[in-house]
């Protein structure tokens, strides 16, 4: 599970959708691996407007990365900032959670990640 993907996911429980606490999900006991991937600036520039920056800052800190700036870079700033591109590439694209859990800050439900694949299926009482 890439960190980028984590930024697109909330708790699957319907009652949690309206709560601000259900996003982002919080990694717990996360085992990280780093893929060595070629940087794709075009992808990062396209992704930037879709990323919830506040949530990304939270996730980044929770996973032990250096603190991200308070404001997201603009597309122009990102295109011309080699270091920012590298940092975001490493965080969003190369970092994977292989084992661990994602915890909802609202209901406390824990979604397991095994072999890099998260499971968001809910038991019947939560559907």
């Amino acid at each position, binding site marked *: 599970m890439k960190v980028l993907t984590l930024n697109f*996911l909330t708790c699957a429980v319907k009652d949690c959708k309206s709560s601000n606490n259900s996003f982002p999900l919080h990694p717990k006991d996360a085992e990280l691996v780093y893929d060595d991937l070629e940087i794709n600036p075009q992808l990062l520039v396209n992704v930037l407007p879709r990323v919830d920056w506040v949530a990304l800052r939270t996730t980044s800190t929770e996973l032990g990365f250096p603190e991200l700036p308070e404001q997201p870079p603009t597309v122009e700033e990102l295109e011309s900032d080699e270091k920012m591109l590298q940092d975001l590439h490493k965080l969003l694209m190369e970092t994977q959670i292989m084992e661990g859990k994602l915890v909802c800050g609202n209901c406390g439900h824990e979604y397991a990640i095994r072999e890099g694949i998260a499971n968001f299926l809910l038991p019947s009482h939560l559907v």
Partner: protein
Amino acid sequence: MEYLIRFSQSHETFRLPEIQALAIIEGIDLKVISYSLESPFCIVNLPSEDAAKRLIQRSILVQTIHELWGAGLTLDDVHAAVRSKTAHLWPQYASCSFKFSFDSYQSSRSGADKVRIINSFAYLGFAGPIKMSKPDQEFILFEDWILDSTPLGIPDPKAYFFGRYFATGARDLPKKLDLKKRRYISTTSMDAELALITANIALAAPGKLMYDPFVGTGSFPIACAQFGALAFGSDIDGRSIRGEGKKTLKGNFEQYGLVGNLGSVFTADLTNSPIRKMALGEGGEDGARGRVFDGILCDPPYGVREGLRVLGVRDPEKSPWIIPKGIEMYKQSDFVPPKKPYSFLAMLDDILQFSAQTLVDNGRLSFWMPTANDEEQEIPVPTHPYLEIVAVCTQVFSKWSRRLITYRRLPNAQVDPEAMKARDETRELLGKTVDELNPFRRAYFSKFETPMTPAN
């Protein structure tokens, strides 16, 4: 300038939507001058030869593209057009090596005929060496014949086109992704050619985020990744993603050297999706927390080979123990959540609603759906106020067909708010059993025969 596209005469209804999509991806102004489903020859207007090359470089259904020198109903028409329009081009090719060839659709020419016709182009004044293998330039006379012309005694084709070849499409790409050589597939894996065409029509391209909510063994994400997009997928059945041993979805990406284009895959149910959505009417512009995907493409289960299931309990009153048992057991790692049958039509509607909430403006949804060929049993194309139908392509089998339906996410300002109200009021679920919920499955197992009205 006019160009002649030589299509493959297969998947006919997919051909124009594919090149129109490629024109959008490449930002090329494409005008179709003449096209017919019955013919592999299509005349288009394009700004330049370079644009034409870019247009078809990843097309699965275009074989080749040519600078059109002349077209007509008779060979004399073609000569007249070539003489009047292209005389300024001839000197460029006066001394290079070249060859003339024939592409006779639904017929063929004898050697003597070919020589006679080639010699009628002598006025072009090409004095360079003739090379049958790897010439500098290839000039082709295309002939569009009526089927069975020879037995019918028809001496001439119904139309001719004469052009200079300069580029080839991506007809070899499906071989690279051929299911027969793919490590990990299942009974419902989409064949490589159609998966690639779907990815083209859904506008997969470098830097784009594409998502398949019924990912299975990953046919669509692989096709999207092949075109440089970052591909995401999920499935209610985690086993299909995990596979076994080396046969896994990720293993398929490794086989093709596309791991860098694999976003993430996860286990999830479309009706209880963890993907964050925007309320309809919000987002899509630049700014924080926009909608996520550039394209969504899928081949949802039809409920014939594989059951349609969503999370939940079919009849909680008849099986009251299921929910308490779930509460007791759900934290165990081997817990499998109960599922209930799902309406085929509700599923299609859920796909549309989900796409409206997660696609960026002008992002595309392309999904496959089956229907009976019989008009009375035909399943209508589903609609949504936020989605405009772009193309409906059909692959016909004997009694049923499957359609690839493609929509464009409208920017909020173009949506009719009244249509949205009407939609909310009409959505209803009918029935609980698999057959009640699925008109296609019902028709399939009754062999697509229209029910007879009993005689009095």
